[in-house]
Each structure stands twice: as C-alpha cells, then as structure tokens.
C-alpha cells in the first residue's frame, strides 16, 4: 500500500529529507527559502528529457523510494499552457518506463461485445480531438504543505500548488473506442491500467468515460513525453489527477466498482460524516491562486504592480475571479484573459497600486455552475472541522480553499494560509 497509496501523498517534510538523502545534498529549508530564484541542489535520480533547459534540478523531489514528484514552477510563467517539459509529474515508479510504441497495444475488454486491441497507429486513424485541460494531483495544496511551523515557512507557490498543469491534449475520445467495442447493457464502471512496473490502475464511472475522456497521444503539439505516459494516457478532464492513468494499456468495462491501486483513502476524518472518512472524490471544485506576487517573492517597490494568477474548476469554465488586497474584507473583479475554457486554467490579472503597507492578497473563483471557492474557514466548517483544529495544518486531499499571501512592509511575500 505504502508507495502508491497514502504514502504517495507524503508531505514535503519527509520528501525533502529523502531528497536530501538521494541527492546527497541539503534540501528543505534551502530551496524553500529561495523561492523563484532558487538554485538549490534538490534533484532526483530521474530527470525529464530536457530538464536542463529549464533549470529543472529544483523541480524534482524524491518522495519515497518508489515515488518521484516534479512541481510546475507556476510563479515563473504566464498564460495558461504549461510546456510539456514543465508539466508536473507524479511518477509511481523509480524510473520513467521505456515503452516501444510500435509494440504497445491498448486493449478494451470486459463487458463489451467485441474485445479489441488498438495499436498507436490504429488510434491515429480514428477521429481526433485537441482540447485544453488542466491536470491536478488530488493532494495539490495539501494544507500540511503550507505549514508555517516548520523550516518550510515561505514555501513558494511552486511547491504548494505546483502539482497542477494545463496542456492541449490530442487523442481519441474514449467514447469512440468504447463504441468500437460495443459496451454491453448493465455496464457502469471503466477500469484503466498502465503498462509501467506497478500497473497503476483506476476506476471511473462509465458516464464520465463517454462524456469527455480522451485517450491522448499528444501534448502541446508533440507526442506525449515518457514522464507523461508515452505513448498513451487517459485524460479525465476536471477530475483528480490520479484518474489520468499514464502508459495506458488496458481498459476493462465492468458493472461494479474496483479499487485496484488502493488509493484515495488518505483523507480527513470529518465530523460532518460522523468521524468517517470521505473517499472517492471525483470532480475538482472551483479554485484559484495568485501566482505573482506569491510566497517567497520580493515586491518590486511601491506603486503599480499587476497581480496575476490562475483560476480553474472541474465543473466547467471560470465565470469570474474576485481579488482582495485586504485579506478578504473587500473584493473587486479581476480581468480574465482569453481563452476561458471549461476544465482548463484561466489566467486572471488585477491592477494594484501597493502603498507600501502590509497587505494580504487573495483570489476567489466562481465557476459557470455558480459554485464559489471557499475560504479555508468555510471549507473546514463544511468539513466539520472545528475552528480550533483548523488553525493547524492537517493533511488533506481534494483541497480547494482560497490562498492568501501576506505582503510585508519590507516587500517580502509570505504564505498566509495559516497566519
């Protein structure tokens, strides 16, 4: 269970310690403190192909012996598209699988009239779609990642919210492949399985599978990269990252729920559920985060500064983003940059004149379903977690609270989630 189960959501403290062991270098506080201009020596034994282009060494963290994480440097880019080389990575093995695309086959079996196997060339014959969608790890923004009581104070946005990225994905709608195979009446769930050593596997409802899921072979105009599932991956738009099975090899249509990788159990015991654990979240709620200025940065000086960030929702498109510069007392609407697409990152900007006084900047997303991003207090109240307990960062999944940043009078910017 450990490596792919709750252990994969191991929080940064242990991760950094292990990274330090793996890289033979001091980690943790060093890269945490330096923020966007970090030149820390945190790295893992595996690197994406062109890691050197983007100074990738500071992106990688070995989370435990069989799990690697790369964080997208959100503070460093504009627009909504994450270059493939900067896309976050949650690797469930210690290495990137090397798969011969010519030999690779995707099978569809189970409750279908015609069990089929598809080569990559077969898939490229079929009608394709290209759609822009975010992918976000279910542990992204994990409250414990904000912990101000440790050496990670001031953790930059990259390490708090960087387990998400947004790309143009190209591939075949899963509905087309299921139609080729002919789904039988009574089927209700679809299990996917990867070809990597641990055969990462996940189950989604059939209704979602035929709605908007994609068997993707392309990302941002090129073939998938090895760290993103080459030659094939599943795209499950708007849902937690673990659904998006990489190295996609098998799809089985079934009439009952399966839990092959034993995941999605690591959540908070909730008083509103009688102390039980909510498991199997599906869709992300409305979210947003200011990426500049953000934790670890320094303000360029008094006067005009553009606030910018990302907003997104698993439920649809972003309808509006509000920004507050007084910690949520008053709000003004931000500008949304086109394109504003469903289940995709949306870039927002907000004009601000900083007067040199302490300020708390925070953004709030409303999606086109009318759902509004909660504050951390609202989120915890909804989760049945007491105000007292909520002051301490707990380890949680499926977290979509607003992210406040505190701008100090000296121009330094700090994570204010718990202060």
């Amino acid at each position, binding site marked *: *269970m450990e*490596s792919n189960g709750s252990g994969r959501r191991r929080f940064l403290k242990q991760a950094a310690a292990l990274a330090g062991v793996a890289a033979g270098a001091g980690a943790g506080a060093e890269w945490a403190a330096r923020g966007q201009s970090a030149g820390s020596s945190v790295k893992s034994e595996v690197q994406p192909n062109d890691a050197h282009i983007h100074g990738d060494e500071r992106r990688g963290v070995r989370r*435990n*012996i069989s799990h690697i994480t790369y964080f997208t440097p959100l503070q460093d880019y504009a627009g909504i598209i994450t270059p493939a080389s900067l896309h976050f990575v949650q690797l469930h093995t210690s290495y990137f699988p090397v798969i011969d695309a010519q030999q690779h086959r995707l099978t569809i079996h189970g409750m279908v009239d015609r069990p089929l196997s598809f080569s990559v060339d*077969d898939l490229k014959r079929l009608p394709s779609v290209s759609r822009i969608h975010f992918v976000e790890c279910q542990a992204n923004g994990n409250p414990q990642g904000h912990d101000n009581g440790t050496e990670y104070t001031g953790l930059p946005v990259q390490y708090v919210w960087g387990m998400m990225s947004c790309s143009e994905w190209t591939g075949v709608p899963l509905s087309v492949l299921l139609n080729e195979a002919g789904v039988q009446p009574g089927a209700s769930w679809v299990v996917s399985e990867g070809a990597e050593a641990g055969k990462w596997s996940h189950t989604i409802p059939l*209704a979602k599978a*035929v709605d908007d899921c994609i068997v993707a072979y392309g990302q941002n105009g090129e073939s998938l990269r090895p760290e993103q599932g080459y030659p094939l991956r599943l795209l499950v738009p708007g849902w937690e990252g673990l659904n998006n099975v990489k190295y996609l090899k098998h799809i089985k249509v079934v009439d*009952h729920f399966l839990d092959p990788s034993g995941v999605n159990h690591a959540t908070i015991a909730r008083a*509103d559920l009688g102390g039980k654990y909510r498991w199997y979240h599906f869709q992300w709620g409305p979210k947003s985060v200011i990426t500049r200025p953000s934790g670890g940065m320094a303000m360029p000086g008094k006067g005009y500064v553009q606030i910018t960030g990302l907003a997104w929702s698993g439920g649809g498109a972003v309808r509006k983003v509000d920004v507050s510069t007084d910690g949520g007392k008053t709000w003004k609407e931000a500008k949304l940059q086109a394109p504003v697409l469903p289940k995709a990152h949306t870039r927002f900007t907000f004009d601000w004149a900083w007067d040199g006084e302490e300020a708390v900047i925070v953004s709030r997303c409303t999606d086109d379903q009318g759902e509004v991003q909660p504050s951390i207090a609202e989120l915890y109240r909804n*989760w049945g977690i007491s105000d007292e307990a909520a002051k301490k960062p707990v380890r949680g999944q499926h977290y979509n609270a607003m992210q406040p940043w505190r701008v100090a009078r000296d121009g330094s910017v700090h994570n204010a989630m718990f202060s």
Partner: protein
Amino acid sequence: MRCSLNLLLPVIILAAPAVALAQSQPRFNVGTPLSQQEIKSFDFMIGLEGKELPPGHGSPKEGAAVFAKRCQVCHGLNGEGGVVRRLVLGSPGNPHRGTFKQDEKSALSYYPHAVVVWDYINRAMPASNPGSLTPDEVYSVVAFLFYRNGIIQETDVMDAKTLPKVEMPNRNGFVPAVPVYPPEPKPSWW
C-alpha cells in the same frame, strides 16, 4: 448492424443512458479482435468481492519468511515502518479501532477491503521488481500482515475463498460505503 439492433432495444437504452450515448455514434471498424485466451493472459484486475482471485494459499508463518526476504528492507521489521511508513497498526489479537492519526493511515488496518491488499501487492510490490511474487507468496504476505494487524489469527490460511471473507476493522469507516456516481448525497464540499 449492431447499431440498428440496439435501437430496437429502447428499454435497455433508457436504463443505461451513458451506453446509449456511446452507441449512437458510427463505428469505424478499427482495432484487432481479442480472444478470451489473450484476455486471460493479461487481465489480473480483481473486484472487491475477490471472484477473480487465482488459486494458491499462504499462512502468516509462511508470510513472515517472505516478508523478511522481500519487503522488510523498505517496510521495516514486521511491517512496522522503515524507509516507508508502517503497514501495521494494532497487534496480533488486537486490531486498531477508532480513528486513525495522520501517520497511521498507511497501515493495512485503515483499508476497507481485504481483496484490494492482495491486488495491490500482486501488481505493484516489491517496488524494485513488481509482479515477481507468486500467488502463494502474495497470499502468505497478506496473511502475515493481516495477522500482525490483529485482523486474522496466526493459524488462518488465506486463499481465494477465505480472503474475501476477512472482516476489515475499518470496513465501515468510509462514506459512501461503496463509491457511487453521481455522488449521492452530493458532498457539502468536494
């Protein structure tokens, strides 16, 4: 032909709207048919009821030996934690009850379904060489870890019949008991 046949079955289509959506599309006849034998060679997915479990068996005692050789290097002595977090909470005869602290959720006691533990170890462990354990070895490691968690007795043997019947102590600790879609009732916050 297949499409028109399905259109003659409106009751079934109404009962499964998602399926109807998929089958209203044209077919392209791309892909190679798979035989049942081929499917058998790669289909190791195991449902929560364990109907697909393969033959084999293992006892806690046998599992202790396999664990020491193949698992202990990462999971620590008796699965109590090492490079990675603990697999064991509670003790033989004394399963953990009640809520779980943050660092206790890696223990098998936390997991609601016994069969999932078998499937996961079979597909993904040991991390250095996943899939290298025989069914007997997987059954025995599961038996050993369940015994150390206080879930089964030292004399119990795990096989395709006994494993699905193991009562996990946290079986009722999750909401909903079995995932449903769409979520019902809708969570207050997802």
